[in-house]
Structure formats: C-alpha cells, structure tokens
C-alpha cells in the first residue's frame, strides 16, 4: 500500500490524529494559535457524520464536549492560554466526574493576552495546577508532526483507560510549522475504545464503583442505566456525599489512579544518553534545538545527550532521576522561566547540577543559545 504522506501544520497533524483515534464530537471557540484545529473540524466532521459546534466561549466548549462524552462519543476541544484559563473550572469537573476528553492547549506567550502569535511553553504549570483542589492530571506534548500524531492518539487512549481529561500541550512553533507527516494505516497504532459496563438492564449499576483493576466501566447517557453525575464529592451511585470516608476514598482514587502510574504513563525519547556527561532535558518545540546541539556536539566528540519528555504530567520523576544519575550536569531547555526545571530539581539526586537554558521573548531558542549555556557550565565562557 502506498504511504499517505502529507505536508501539513502541526495543528493539522493533531486533527488527522484525532480523526484516526475516532473523534466524532468537537466543540471550540476561535483563538490564535489554535484556530486551525477548530476550522479543520468544522470542515471534516460533517463529512463523516460527526458533530461540530462553535460555542460562545471556551468555558462552553469544554462543557459541551464533557456532555457529549457522556453519551459515548470521543471528544476534543482546542484553545490557547487565555481560553485554557477559562476552562479550568470545567477541567476540574471532568477530573471529578471522570469523563474522558482531550483538551489541546496550543501555547502562546503569556500572561494575559501576551504574545498571541508567538510561541511559548508557559502553560506547563497551569496544566498541572490550574484547576482548584488536589488532583492529578495527564499532560502530553510533542516536538514534531509525526510525534504530534502519535501523541494525540495516545491522548485519546489514555483518556479512555483512566477516565480522565488529557491535556495536549502543543506550542505555537510546532502548531504553525509545516512538516512532513505520514498518516499511519488503520490499525497501525492501537486504539482504546470506551469500556462499557456489562451490567444488564434492571440490575443495579454503580457508575462510580471501580473494578478490581481500578477501571470504571461506563454506561452512555440515553442508555438503559440512569445515574447521577456531579462535581460534588459523591458515592458509588454518583450521589453527593460529604461523609469523610467517601471524600477521602474518592480523592485518593482520583489522584492515585494517575500518580501511582507515573512510570507507566511516561512517554519520552532519548538520544545518546548512555554515556552523556552533559544531559539536555527538553520537550516540545524547544527540544528541536536541543536535538540539534546534541547531534552537532557528538560530531565533535563531546558526550552530550538528550532526554525529550512527551509526558509532562504526571511528572516521570523515577525515569528522570535514573536518566540523569550519571550526567555531570543537566540542562533543562524550555520556553518559560523554568517550569519543568523545578520538577527536574525535585526529581534528581543532586539538584545543584540542574541548569536552565531558556528563552521567554517569543523567539525559538536556538542551538547557539543552548551552546552558550553549555560553555558557561563547562567554564569555557561564551
């Protein structure tokens, strides 16, 4: 079979992947630099009988996809920083009610309206802690279009397995860049379909009673089981409860189902890590420059390696600690003021060997920016 090759933007790679994963409901609101995603679904979804709706704001967009997910559909919305800020309350609702959905945040410079058309990775911590209360979250990212494709499919799969919202943290640089994309054949990437309850009509179905393996089989709204869904702490029936035992149990369930599986959820790529004395740790667009530095320095015989994270949350602390153990220095390369660097410092055995190479001015960090930092650490001066 001939390969299905496209030359597309990162945003289009995300759309192709979502359709590959079986997305059939999308709600969105225009915002730069994510609008191409919303526009593409407006065109593509009606062609396959799927549902597209442009809502009145980002809050409504997330609410609408949560409602649609409850009827059994695979759903997504896409936005950028300001819209992602608006979504935080509904994000917490999806976490609390365990409703699968995928939220794309194509990051731009912030805070506030910031730099609408320029790249940033400033929403990493917002993805982790933007919504109120203790909680866990899954947030993924990718640095090139082929990986955007596979990670988007992965986002849908993880949302179904763990019954959780999954955040896809793209950035303007990758989203608007054009690059080659090979669309995988159907079946090439495994898809996870929704786990439906096997409880028959007329038999009590407990929507919030996890199975032995921790998973919660669902019943679609409109189906034979009628149940209550609420953002309040709730019992196995989905009915509000403030009983301390119920509250404690549910909060632990919500956090543990993700945090206890941080290593399993970790997706990452590694380049020349084995003997690396200087280890670059990066993700998303920034890791493209980091990769360039590593390839270049290796040609000069320098032992530089790269760990590219694709799962940012839950933070893969165990893997980061292990991969960083032998390096003399770890340089975190990111387009923010050290949001992942803080997590790396907490994870490694020697936080004082962790440094930051960053740019926060809307400009793509260059290999020479990173080289300068490496030389400073090595005591060579710029």
């Amino acid at each position, binding site marked *: 079979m001939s390969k299905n090759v496209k030359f597309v933007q990162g945003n289009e790679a995300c759309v192709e992947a979502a359709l590959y994963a079986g997305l059939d409901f999308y709600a969105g609101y225009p915002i730069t630099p994510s609008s191409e995603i919303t526009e593409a679904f407006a065109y593509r979804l009606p062609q396959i009988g799927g549902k597209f*709706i442009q809502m009145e704001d980002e809050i409504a967009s997330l609410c609408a*996809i*949560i409602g649609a997910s409850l009827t059994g559909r695979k759903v997504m919305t896409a936005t950028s920083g300001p819209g992602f800020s608006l979504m935080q309350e509904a994000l917490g609702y999806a976490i609390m009610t365990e409703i699968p959905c995928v939220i794309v945040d194509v990051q731009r410079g912030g805070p506030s309206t910031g730099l609408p058309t320029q790249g940033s990775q400033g929403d990493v911590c917002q993805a982790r802690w933007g919504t109120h209360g203790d909680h866990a979250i899954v947030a993924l990212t990718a640095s090139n279009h082929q990986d955007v494709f596979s990670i988007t499919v992965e986002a849908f799969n993880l949302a179904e397995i763990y019954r959780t919202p999954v955040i896809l943290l793209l950035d303007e640089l990758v989203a608007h860049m054009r690059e080659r994309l090979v669309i995988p054949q159907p079946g090439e990437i495994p898809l996870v379909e929704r786990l439906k309850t096997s409880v028959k009509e007329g038999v009590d179905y407990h929507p919030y009673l996890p199975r032995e393996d921790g998973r919660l089989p669902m019943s679609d709204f409109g189906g034979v089981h009628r149940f209550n869904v609420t953002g309040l702490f709730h019992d196995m029936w989905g009915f509000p409860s403030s009983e301390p035992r119920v509250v404690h149990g549910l909060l632990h369930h919500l956090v543990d189902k993700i945090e206890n599986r941080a290593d399993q959820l970790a997706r990452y790529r590694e380049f020349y890590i084995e003997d690396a004395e200087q280890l670059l740790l990066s993700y998303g667009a920034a890791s493209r420059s980091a990769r360039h530095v590593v390839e270049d320095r290796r040609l000069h015989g320098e032992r530089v390696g790269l760990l590219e994270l694709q799962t940012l949350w839950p933070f893969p602390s165990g893997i980061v600690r292990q991969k960083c153990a032998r390096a003399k220095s770890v340089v975190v390369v990111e387009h923010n003021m050290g949001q992942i660097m803080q997590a790396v410092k907490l994870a490694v055995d020697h936080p004082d060997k962790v440094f930051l190479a960053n740019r926060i001015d809307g400009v793509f960090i260059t290999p020479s920016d990173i080289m300068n930092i490496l030389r400073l650490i090595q005591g060579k001066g710029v």
Partner: protein
Amino acid sequence: MAIKNYLRERFFPHLWCPGCGHGMVLNGLLRAIEKLGLSKNEIVMVSGIGCSSRITGYVDFHTLHTIHGRALAFATGVKMARPELNLIVPMGDGDALAIGGNHFIHAARRNIDITAIIMNNRIYGMTGGQFSPLSGENISATTAPFLTIDPSFDVVQLAKAAGATFVARTTTYHIQQMSDIIQQAVLHKGFSVVEVLSQCPTYFGRKNKIGDAVDMVAYFKKNTTPIGSKAKQENPYLLERGIFVKEEKPEYCSLYEKVVQKAMKGQ
C-alpha cells in the same frame, strides 16, 4: 406511571427548606412528564449550581449536576450528540441569568431543542441570601443591606429577544398551569423557556418581610394575571403569566443534519 416512580427515593430527604417552592416545581414537572408518557431513559436533566440545581439528584432520569451557570452548555453537548433525547434544564435565577447569562442567550439564539426551566426565587439561597439579577430594585439582601439599586431582567423579554421560540411564565401557586406549560415546552421543538416564580421563605421572604411560605404563594396569586386579562388593563403592575411566544422555527440539530448532508454530498 405513578409520580413516585420518577423519584430516586434512595436519596431523600431532599435538602430544600420547609416551604421552599422548588419542591412544587418538581411536582409540576413530574406531572407534566407523566402526562407526556415519556420513558425515563429518554430524558436527560442537566443542572448547574444552587438550591434549584439539586433537583437533578432526586429524579430517576439521566442526570447531570454540573458547575455554576454552565448547565445549558453541557446540555447543548448532550443534545448535539444525541438529538433524540429530551433535554430538560432546571436553573436558578442567578445560575441562569447572572453567571449563566451568556449561555442562556446563545442557547436561545441557536434555537436548540432544550427546555429551560428558570426557578426564579429572586435570591441566591444556597449561599445565604444575596440579591440576584432577578431580585429587582429596593430589595433587602445580605449583599444589599441598604436595599438593591440593580434593575431586574424581564426573563420573558430577554428570552424572546434572544430568539427562544417558546417562552412562558407561571408560578408555584398555579401548579396546574405550570404542569400544562411544561408539557407544551417539552413537546415544542426548539429552545423553550419557562419562568416559574418560586418562593424562598428562608431568605427572600424573611429579609423582605413578605411573610411565610403560604403568604408568598398567596402573593403570586394576587400579583399575577393571565396574559391580556382585563385585570392587567386595570392594574398594569400585575405580572402576566401564560405562554408569550410559541413559534415554529428551524431547530439547531435539524439544521446541523442538513450541514452533514451538504458536506457528504460535496465529497
């Protein structure tokens, strides 16, 4: 089916105060559904946050108790995904028209087939008696110790202007009318708005010295009149109740189906 069969008795007693009007709205709503003969599996009830929104917990439908003000946005998602389901969205006055005002006018503009029931007790009850955008002027509330200066929305005018194709008002005193109106609202294909004046004796009544629950319900009897009645001509201060708007216009999900047909043909 008996009314009792629509209730989740497991979750009783309910949390509403003695004398609260919201139980009367539940009564009128369930009688309407009983008369319509709808199956429980065909009904999705979506609510936001507030005293009124707790109604979803007590009924044996597919129920979605969401976040403050956003019930109609969630309901829009459910309806678009499964247009054959009946969506009923009970909301409080603050929930529907303060924090949820934007979603309210946009749901009306789309004319999506959802029945919105605004349980208007003119106060935020759950948080302890603050004024709402439906309280009106010269009302005493915990956030208006010197009485309100905020004018009120007229729900009927607002819904009409925003594009709702079924708009009605009734009260908890007029249970029979409430039930009839809700029946018609559910049957109507398009966005339906039913404002039900409901009493909050705990906060609104007590703060404004209107009396107890019975006095408040009697107030609805005395101060409302059927649309276009002679009494209204004689006393313009009376509030009209009944069906103000009932018109056929293309419904959103049906229009979307046409978009799908067009898109598929174009391929």
